[in-house]
């Protein structure tokens, strides 16, 4: 009898693995699937317009181009090239993401023709004065977080998994994030960021999704609202281009000097 029920139990677990999963395992499985679906695009490039708005409604904008190169078994290589404001035109930032290890980062200052190393422990600092922190815009790697599945929930008519993400890299400004992940696209619809005291700090909303190469979903609009200081930043991502034939040599300290 005892043996029978054990066999039954094992068979049941094999047939319905979900039953045996903890919420942590399920959260990880969902994000691993998101990661799997987004792998293999090799490289991409897009134009970005960031609009910063303060609590008084004053607005300033930044325009930049982002180039990304996928790296097998490591984080992506990424280059951001600024076109505005005019005083930072031509400034370029090169980042090698490394999962839980600190990233490598360089900044090129065109007026001095100088490349400087940047300390990457500054994860929680604001990116170009916006409500996006460096850790919000750096490339997402599966290893950077622990996960926990919370529930299923509909958001604006889209079925989503709701998953908690706990940063495991050092120097994060967050205790956790709550992410609404679209079940069809396996892409985020919304992320809430909780500060070091555990209070809600910011809400990031993703919209205007488009599919590229019949596979990869990219949001055209990211809206970051800081609920604590009333400031917000809108990030528009346009003109996605894939298969650019980028190589490692386009993502070096020296390559920074010739980008425009």
């Amino acid at each position, binding site marked *: 009898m005892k043996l029978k029920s054990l066999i039954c139990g094992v068979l049941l677990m094999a047939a319905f693995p979900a039953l045996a999963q903890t919420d942590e395992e399920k959260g990880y499985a969902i994000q691993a699937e998101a990661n799997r679906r987004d792998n293999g695009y090799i490289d991409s490039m897009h134009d970005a317009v960031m609009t910063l708005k303060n609590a008084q409604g004053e607005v300033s904008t930044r325009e930049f181009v982002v180039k990304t190169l996928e790296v097998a078994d490591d984080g992506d290589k990424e280059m951001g090239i600024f076109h505005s*404001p005019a*005083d930072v035109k031509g400034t370029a930032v090169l980042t090698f993401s490394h999962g839980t290890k600190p990233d490598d980062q360089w900044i090129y200052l065109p007026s001095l023709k100088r490349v*400087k*190393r940047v300390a990457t422990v500054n994860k929680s600092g*604001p990116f170009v004065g*916006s409500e996006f922190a460096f850790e919000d815009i750096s490339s997402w790697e599966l290893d950077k977080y622990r996960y926990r599945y919370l529930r299923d929930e509909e958001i604006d008519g889209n079925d989503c998994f709701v998953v908690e993400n706990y940063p495991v890299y050092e120097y994060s400004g967050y205790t956790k994030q709550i992410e609404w992940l679209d079940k069809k696209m396996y892409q985020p619809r919304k992320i809430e960021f909780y500060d070091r005291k555990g209070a809600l700090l910011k809400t990031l909303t993703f919209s205007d999704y488009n599919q590229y190469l019949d596979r990869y979903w990219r949001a055209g609009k990211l809206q970051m609202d800081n609920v604590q200081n009333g400031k917000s930043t809108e990030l528009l991502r346009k003109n996605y281009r894939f298969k650019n034939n980028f190589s490692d*040599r386009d993502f070096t300290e*020296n390559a920074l000097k010739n980008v425009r």
Partner: protein
Amino acid sequence: MIAKVARYILFSLWTVALATFAQAADFSGKAAVDTRFFTEPPIFAQQKDGVAYPSVMIQPEFRHDWGSGNNRLTVIPFARYDSLDKHRTHWDVREFSWLHMQKNWDLLVGVGKVFWGTTESRQLVDIINQSDLIEKFSGEEKLGQPMMNLNLPTDYGHFSLFYLPYFRERTFPSSNGRFLFDPPVRNSEGKLDGFSHWQPSFAGRWSKTFGDWDVGVAHFWGVGREPRLVPSFGQGFTHPPTGLVPIYDLIHQTSIDVQGVLGNWIWKAEAITRSGQGDRFAAAVVGFEYTKYGVFGGSKDVGFLLEYLYDGRSSFAPPTPFNNDIFSGIRVVFNDPQNTEFLFTNTVDLNTHATILGFNASRRLGEKWKIELESRFFANISATKNPFAPPKEILTGMRNDDYIQLRVVRHF
């Protein structure tokens, strides 16, 4: 007649080129109004002793890419009008170059600008371009340099090779300006020691990233950018020297520059060894920048800078104030939408206690404007004791040149 036709054809070509260029080119640049306020009267009788001296500058930038981005024409002229110093009223071609880019190499031909180095307090290894010393007396501003520069990115590092066919002399203030040496430099009497301005120079640099560290090793062979300053006795040897004459020499200089990141610490080092100006000598700058993030109520960063400067050159070599100095600084970055920054610096000579205090601040106004404050204060700088010998302290002539400069920049 033929000359007339030729001129007409040339003119037409030029117009067409300009028109095409204006259509496709990327046009940007900046213009600025600076005003320098001097807090003390100058040392020499012939120097203008006003307090406020305005100055205007413009630096447009044209870039044009063609051939699916494999070719680029860059044109960056520069001009300044200065109310204090007639030498500082000057123009230059900062860049005028054709860059051809391929997957495994790129070549730049024309007038270019190249920077080597990592440290904050001194640009020791940076040698390709000549300093435009009247633009900024620290020597950080550079004149355009004619060059052919071949770059080869390889798996063994990045190789950069230079052929520099023409030598440009350093700019110096005029005798009624500020930041003079004691006695002042007589630039019109500058000499090249046994060669012409067409004396070629050659240089090569290898650089590579090793994890958290970037390393560059370079060698330069040709006309040293720093001149010796030799006293000239215009009124005979029984009178004190009337000026310093810049004399340029052929040198060999080997250098290394390193920067590395360890958590909040950025470590920086530069070192050179040079022959051709007296005995072979070595010089080095070693230091760090430690940054504390998210202070003063959240988003501001504070960086602490510390560097040690050593220079073992003899009195036969070009003079430097940085023989045995400590540089320290504090940088405050506000991380606000206007990108507000402050930088306080202090350079002290450990032997003479000669001190240069610095303060810089900048803030963007709207999308196109920027306001910048720059000031330097000189302290503990000894006056000349023996009028026949050049002063031991190279900054002697500048000891009363404390200034505050307010600059309003319009980017376009």
